[in-house]
């Protein structure tokens, strides 16, 4: 997290921050529901379902980095896996999906588990 002095030297555009966070949040909610559907179809139960979710949300973050962040971020001289061109916290980018989409995941997971097995 940048300090006050760094923010004074290189200011941040709030609109871009909101836009990028919203884009990422929309993707995470959508994909979490999708992962719930596939977990329900696969008939996963208890821990294996949660492991499935954690693994796939990490895959989502990596894919989003590779397709959306990396082309311009690497070209501007940032090191690999550095998201500071578009996002403020690295933790929010890589692990934020675990929190944001969890409710949607459980919802569709139970729904499709019930649809398929009942």
């Amino acid at each position: 997290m940048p300090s006050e002095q760094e923010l004074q030297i290189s200011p941040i555009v709030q609109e871009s921050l909101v836009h990028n966070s919203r884009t990422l949040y929309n993707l995470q909610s959508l994909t979490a529901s999708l992962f719930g559907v596939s977990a329900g179809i696969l008939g996963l139960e208890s821990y294996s379902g949660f492991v499935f979710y954690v693994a796939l949300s990490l895959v989502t973050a990596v894919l989003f980095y590779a397709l959306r962040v990396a082309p311009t971020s690497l070209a501007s001289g940032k090191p690999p896996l550095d998201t500071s061109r578009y996002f403020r916290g690295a933790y929010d980018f890589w692990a934020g999906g675990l929190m944001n989409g969890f409710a949607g995941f459980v919802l569709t997971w139970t729904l499709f588990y019930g649809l398929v097995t009942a």
Partner: protein
Amino acid sequence: MVICILASPIIVIRSFGASRPQAQEASNTAMTLLSKTITAFGSLLLAHACYSAREHTALQSIRAATAATLTSSSTAATSLPVDIIIETIISTFIILLGLVLGTRPLRPLEWRVWAGKIEREGEEGFTDNAGAVDKDYMGNPFSVLESRPNFVDIRKQRKEFAEWVQKGDGKQGQ
């Protein structure tokens, strides 16, 4: 902020390529079509996998019901066939790819990077996937400063005008 204001008169580069916006717009629409096609294809596969899994469990329960009359019902707890599992996982990844491709382009966070992008690309750098300019695009943040009369290079403009008049006269003369 102070640095930005001080630096603003220096940033007076306006280079709008004539062919570039159209090319970018075309690639954006192609991108939208691509992502939608991929997502639709993946959804189709996922729906098929879901239907197959449903049919499989239904078949299993029928078989278990008929087998229960003959032997002990130990066959009820069989897992999904491998092809349904593979289809589900592959379709999930296909939809995931389509959704990631369908996300809107990000914007640079740092003020100087963002302002530089505006200077270089104009509103073509701030379009969504369909090629339409974002609603909250507000253009050059320094436009008020750059249009100050004190900073207008009047001699250069006069020279350009004189050249333009000369060229126009030459054309009319021929």
